[in-house]
């Protein structure tokens, strides 16, 4: 390519190609994302705050004084904290040993540990709760009937409608938070830290206490706090188990305030108290997690040593088998059995039927509508959340826009909002607007996108961080415009991450109950709400069938995620120098 083959077509164009316009596509896209975030999250929160001070005549603190002193509310607060504390504690007691066993010992059947944690995490807690009531409701529960009336061992009966029952159902869902954070921390501790202690004369046990434990403690504590935050936010299990047992918690108390006549000010004030607890816990959690950063900095990460457990490893295996049985096999076997039985009871296996599935899928228009609504909502909400996440992540990482950090923080606010609180905020905001959104699919969509926008931002952020800025810059210097660079370079490179994020939003939206329960109408009913309502009205067997359909949709989405995500992650791109 010497000078003589230089063609005139390739001369540089130092002059602008087209007149500069003040409004470019990138500005429209960025502006759109910012405005959406404000409408979805910031304004509803502002109206929640305003609403909590609204009295019959002007501004007042009445709602707060009622919420902080009234017996009903203090009781709910106490129950929520108690439930959170117990759930955190038991999550720690189950999650940490399992994580340690997998990461640091020669325990057999490690995949079983992983599967137990993953499935427990993915199981919607309100479905597990329903499943367990089939077995352990005090009078009709199958297991209780069996123990009391058939085997004559009444001391083996268990009443699920109690605080221990509620904690049991909750912990099944929350122990994976401790497990996942603890095992990733344990795995990322560089073995050379421990080897360095040992060469200096420390025994294995001393090394574990003096070196490993302090390194992973922040991650473990942060996992425990996440378990706490998630435990107190679960509306479904607290309504299904708590209400019959007269254990009222914050979400169920807020829910009750919407019985006619709705008490908006009280609900708002109680919601803000709820937010305060959640945010405080998340703040602590974040502070702990920041302290573990030195673990991940460890770099090359040689393989950690595996402790020889001897006979004790069979004990651990037995423990995980029990957890697997109680949190996976028992609820799902029960749901399957109930869904196929004509009438649930000791002799259910004598009349197996498909009638329940036929009923919810083909005969009952409420459940049909609910399934369709949920599928459409999950599809649209996941797409919007991920697209907004991509733009917000891009603004944060790739532009110098003033206030971009603020934008990033704003997009994380929903993490501190329990679902039901999000619903209260949306109701307060949209009731004040001239648009009649209440009870429509749109308000549900707004709730879902708003709730799960942090997942979209996080997925986009993580994938964008993997794409070195120079990959975009090199397209730019070759003459590519912003749009071309996005289309040709950035989007193709972050697509696998965005798709994973899409499924991360899709799965929880399909099973969303906490916010939907306040926002739905008979036309906009969703899958989870339909399950809850059928359960409440006593349709025992069809509920199980609908629950199974719910699980099948989730299962299909996850299977898809593994299939597609797995392929794109192991494809040709992974060894390329994208990380620098």
């Amino acid at each position, binding site marked *: 390519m010497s000078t003589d083959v230089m063609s005139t077509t390739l001369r540089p164009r130092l002059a602008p190609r087209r007149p500069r316009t003040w409004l470019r596509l990138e500005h429209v896209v960025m502006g759109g994302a910012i405005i959406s975030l404000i409408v979805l999250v910031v304004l509803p929160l502002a109206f929640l705050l305003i609403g909590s001070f609204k009295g019959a005549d002007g501004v007042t603190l009445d709602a707060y004084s009622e919420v902080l002193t009234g017996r009903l509310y203090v009781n709910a607060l106490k129950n929520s904290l108690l439930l959170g504390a117990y759930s955190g504690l038991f999550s720690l007691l189950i999650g940490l040993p399992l994580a340690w066993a997998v990461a640091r010992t020669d325990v057999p059947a490690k995949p079983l540990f992983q599967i137990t944690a993953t499935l427990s995490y993915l199981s919607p807690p309100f479905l597990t709760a329903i499943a367990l009531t089939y077995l352990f409701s005090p009078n009709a529960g199958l297991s209780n009937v069996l123990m009391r009336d058939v085997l004559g061992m009444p001391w083996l009966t268990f009443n699920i409608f109690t605080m221990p029952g509620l904690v049991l159902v909750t912990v099944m869902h929350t122990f994976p938070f401790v497990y996942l954070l603890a095992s990733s921390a344990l795995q990322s501790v560089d073995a050379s830290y421990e080897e360095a202690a040992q060469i200096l004369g420390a025994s294995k046990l001393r090394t574990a206490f003096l070196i490993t434990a302090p390194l992973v403690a922040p991650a473990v504590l942060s996992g425990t706090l996440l378990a706490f935050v998630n435990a107190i936010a679960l509306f479904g299990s607290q309504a299904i188990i708590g209400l019959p047992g007269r254990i009222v918690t914050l979400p169920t108390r807020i829910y009750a305030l919407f019985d006619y006549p709705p008490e908006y000010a009280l609900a708002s004030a109680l919601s803000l108290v709820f937010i305060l607890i959640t945010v405080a816990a998340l703040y602590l959690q974040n502070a702990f997690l920041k302290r573990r950063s030195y673990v991940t900095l460890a770099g090359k990460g040689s393989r950690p040593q595996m402790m020889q457990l001897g006979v004790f490893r069979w004990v651990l295996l037995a423990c995980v088998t029990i957890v697997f049985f109680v949190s996976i096999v028992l609820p799902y076997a029960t749901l399957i059995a109930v869904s196929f039985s004509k009438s649930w009871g000791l002799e259910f296996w004598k009349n197996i039927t498909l009638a329940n599935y036929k009923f919810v899928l083909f005969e009952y228009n409420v459940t049909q509508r609910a399934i369709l609504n949920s599928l459409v909502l999950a599809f649209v909400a996941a797409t919007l959340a991920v697209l907004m996440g991509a733009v917000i992540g891009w603004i944060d990482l790739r532009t110098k826009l003033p206030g971009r950090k603020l934008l990033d923080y704003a997009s994380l606010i929903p993490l501190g909002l329990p679902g039901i609180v999000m619903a209260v905020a949306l109701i307060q905001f949209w009731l004040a607007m001239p648009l009649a959104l209440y009870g429509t699919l749109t308000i549900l969509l707004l709730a879902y996108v708003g709730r799960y926008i942090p997942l979209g931002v996080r997925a986009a952020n993580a994938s964008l961080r993997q794409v070195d800025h*120079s990959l975009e810059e090199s397209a730019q*210097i*070759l003459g590519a415009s912003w749009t071309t660079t996005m289309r040709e370079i950035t989007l193709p490179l972050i697509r696998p991450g965005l798709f994973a994020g899409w499924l991360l939003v899709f799965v929880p939206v399909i099973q969303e109950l906490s916010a939907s329960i306040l926002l739905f109408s008979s036309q906009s009913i969703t899958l989870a709400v339909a399950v809850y309502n059928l359960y409440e009205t006593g349709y025992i067997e069809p509920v199980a069938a609908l629950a199974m359909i719910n699980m099948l949709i989730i299962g299909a989405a996850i299977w898809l995620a593994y299939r597609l995500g797995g392929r794109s992650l192991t494809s*040709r791109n992974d060894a390329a*120098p994208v990380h620098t």
Partner: protein
Amino acid sequence: MAGISIRGLSKSFSSRDSDVAAVADVDIEVKDNSFVTLLGPSGCGKTTTLRLIAGYITPDRGTIEIDGRPLSSPGSVVPPERRGMGMVFQNYAIWPHKNVFENVVFGLKIRKLPSASARRKVEEALALVNLSGLETRYPSELSGGQQQRVALARSLVVEPDILLLDEPLSNLDAKLRERMRLELKELQLRTGITFVYVTHDQAEALALSDQIAVMNLGRVQQYGTPFEVYAHPANRMVADFMGLVNLVPGKVRERSGAGGVVEIAPELTVKVDALDAFAPGETVEVAIRPESIRLAASPVPGGTWATISNHVFLGNISEYFATLASGLTLRVQTHPLQQLKVGEACTIEVDATHCSVFRAGAGEAKAA
């Protein structure tokens, strides 16, 4: 072809509590068809300068012009995509989702070249960097050196007037680096493209450049040919950075014409050619390259006695540390066949024509 003139270029980045000047008052004239290197330790502002030339950053002060056309000034910056330059990044920035052909053809597609001639040009460019036949490979299937060549081909295929290279050889192993160095130089001569090259490796800079801008603390410390910056460093930072040097304190003894005599130890004085700025009695610092000192086992007239205190054999040269009776130790490089033992006495002789004298304690030009 194009020359670049950079005048008064400054850029600060705001850190947590203050503004840090990354580049301050940089003036560089790059001649057409030349190979210019920005050389300096990490954090010296060389990469910032390169990114200012590319248009990724807007300067706070100063201008960048190409053939008299202004490209960058605080008020207006022609964006990178309209500069028609090429750039090779330190990490190559080869797109992992595109194969070799797709990577290289990208710039031609942007320029809307018909696909037949684009294909021909890609083939030419790949031949130029010895990558013919690898069109359908993906970056992950290429070695570091091959990825490097793809990056080069991708930049060259659009026939830029100016090619910017940001430490392009730093991720390669020593042998390959050596070879790519030769190929880069040859490529520059053959294409006549103006190369602006950033590196922290002084050997690389000396081997490749027509002109070197030695940078430190955001400022250009010296701008000259490789010989000038090596043999006549403008200040002690440049002397120190351009290879090994003995920096020893001294005192001006006498002046004669432009030069004079400087005493660096009671028993050792050197006659220096250029001593303009200094008066007798002034304290100075003398930079003596290790290869400018000769060792002899037997007494030499005009030589000074010393003892060998340490010895390092490096293969192509031998390095000795000679300690004078007054305690001063000098690093000396000799022919590897000259054999002296540690503890042995010897005489040393300093070739004063290659010494530089600086004001004592005077640092380099600093960014404000």
